[in-house]
């Protein structure tokens, strides 16, 4: 029994880490602009597919990964520059649908370039499961956990110790004041998108060996990451992490103990309950309206 539980926990945490990375991507952009980036799932997909295609072309895995992350970073930056900035001042919901359009553009471009087939990446350090007692742990899961932890630490350092990170935070608290302090808020937004792209790509690359990827994969991933971000309270980085891991674990536990088909439902019932009873999510900040 305990081995089962551990098994579910491990797989849950692995998937959860990917959700968490996606959720962090949403949090970044939302914080800088209150935009929910519906193309985030496509960022994840582009990272995974680019790496897979590069590996297929014979390029070494580490190089392929770096290439994929850089490319997606560029895609993120271009999204802001070409689709968001021209629409500055548009109602938020219009910007939302614009990001949806961008998602379609990215998906369409990938379909044109690489077709609609499924791709996969080889596991980073082989497939032989590591045995912990009676629980089997795929080595890739360790990569996922480890890299996610590194990413989170790097982000924490970035936001608290570097000027770039601090300007991003400042912009999220009060864009006007940030501008008055000389922060180029448009550049900050572009960097948020670029960073969200990179985060998505890292997540995609890490989990592509476990779950296959295809041009359609972005939608579902985007959704789950969205749900994870909402669970944790979309403005918060800690929330994104917690929400993602929680979502992954709950899904795994439900799939294991209750029923595989209803595992997705549990996540959303939970989300609904959280929203009704704790509208700011687990970690989101309180917002009061001054009249």
């Amino acid at each position, binding site marked *: 029994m305990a081995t089962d539980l551990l098994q579910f926990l491990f797989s849950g945490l692995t998937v959860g880490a990917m959700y968490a990375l996606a959720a962090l991507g949403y949090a970044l952009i*939302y914080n800088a602009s209150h935009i*929910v980036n519906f193309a985030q799932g496509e960022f994840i997909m582009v990272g995974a597919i680019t790496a897979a295609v590069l590996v297929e072309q014979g390029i070494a895995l580490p190089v392929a990964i770096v290439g994929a992350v850089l490319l997606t970073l560029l895609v993120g930056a271009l999204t802001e520059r070409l*689709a968001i900035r*021209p*629409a500055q*001042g*548009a*109602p*938020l*919901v*219009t910007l939302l*649908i*614009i990001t*949806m*359009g*961008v*998602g*379609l*553009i*990215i*998906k*369409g*471009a990938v*379909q*044109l370039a690489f077709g609609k087939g499924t791709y996969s990446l080889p596991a980073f350090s082989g497939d032989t499961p590591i045995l912990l007692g009676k629980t089997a742990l795929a080595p890739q899961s360790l990569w996922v956990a480890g890299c996610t932890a590194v990413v989170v630490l790097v982000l924490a350092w970035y936001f608290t110790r570097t000027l770039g990170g601090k300007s991003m935070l400042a912009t999220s608290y009060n864009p006007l004041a940030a501008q008055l302090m000389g922060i180029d808020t448009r550049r900050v937004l572009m960097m948020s998108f670029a960073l969200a792209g990179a985060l998505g790509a890292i997540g995609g690359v890490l989990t592509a060996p476990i779950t296959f990827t295809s041009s359609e994969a972005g*939608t579902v991933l985007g*959704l789950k990451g*969205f*749900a994870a971000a*909402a669970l944790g309270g*979309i403005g918060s980085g800690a929330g994104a992490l917690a929400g993602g891991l929680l979502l992954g674990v709950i899904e795994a536990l439900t799939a294991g103990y209750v029923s595989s*088909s*209803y595992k*997705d*439902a549990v996540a*959303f*019932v939970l*989300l*609904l309950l959280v*929203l*009704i009873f704790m*509208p700011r999510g687990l970690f989101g900040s309180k917002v009061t*309206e001054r*009249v």
Partner: protein
Amino acid sequence: MTPLFRTHAVLAVLALLMLALPLLDPSSYIFDLATRVGFTAVVVIGLNLLFGYAGQVSLGHAAFFGLGGYASAILTTHFGWPSMAALAIGAVAVGALAFVIARPILRLAGYHLAMATLSLAFIVTIVCTNEQRWTGGSDGMPVPPFTLFGWTLEGDLSWYAVASACLLLVTWGALNLARSPAGRALQAIRGSEVAARLSGIDVARAKTRVFVLSAVLASVMGSLMAHHAGFITPAATGLPRSVEFLMMVVLGGMASIYGSIVGAALVMLLPQVLHAFGAWETLVMGLILTGTLIFMRNGIVPTLRFWLQMPNKRVVSSAPESAQPEGSSK
């Protein structure tokens, strides 16, 4: 030209356009498409009342649409109910569901409301996918033809007539509603809930009413479209369908009834046109959607209206008060 006259004039033009189509002897396929556009436009009008006017973002509207369809499908197939009764009961049930969840959910705003409605859509989709015995699971289930006291609704022209009639009726009703105190109250809720409350508007009640109304409209259309297609799948209830409805509202124009018709028509007709592009279809669709919204940020109909109104209404100035036009209209 009084607003009332203008409303009736445009409705008359719309009716004429609808009458014109059959005269062009279109193919069965075109009829089918036009019928679906008509029904969809009604759903979008309902969503526009909720979202464009009252500002309540709903990412779960397809849940109501799909539930109406499944109610019709299940009640007629498994229980042998007459089509009209199934449609009516479906609408009542969906209305009741909307009523019950309205209060807790509509207290939320913006992003959180979006997520709550999205969860709803997901839960409904999952239930419809998993309850195979009743719903046929992810493959869906067939829906028998629509019958009324022995007479079967079949044939392209008949269905087209029904869709056109529905659209005309709902457009007329929605235009009236938008002009009325109830409609203004909805817009005030979007503009400033605080001011609305202090003007005596019972905001919670108003939100609930429009939520239920839009849900019932979606349900009835869902039932009709299920009968028309002869088939229903869980895709009718899910997030992609909900997002598509929302996209139609935004593209056509928030708080614009005519915009909803334009949005529905555009989003449904565009893929047909883009088929010709083959593998480029998705990409071009994305480009058109993104590009249109960048240049017409308030949606097509409001933006066109704004462009056509200049210079009369755009620049407002006279002594002693010189009002500065605040860029584009909201």
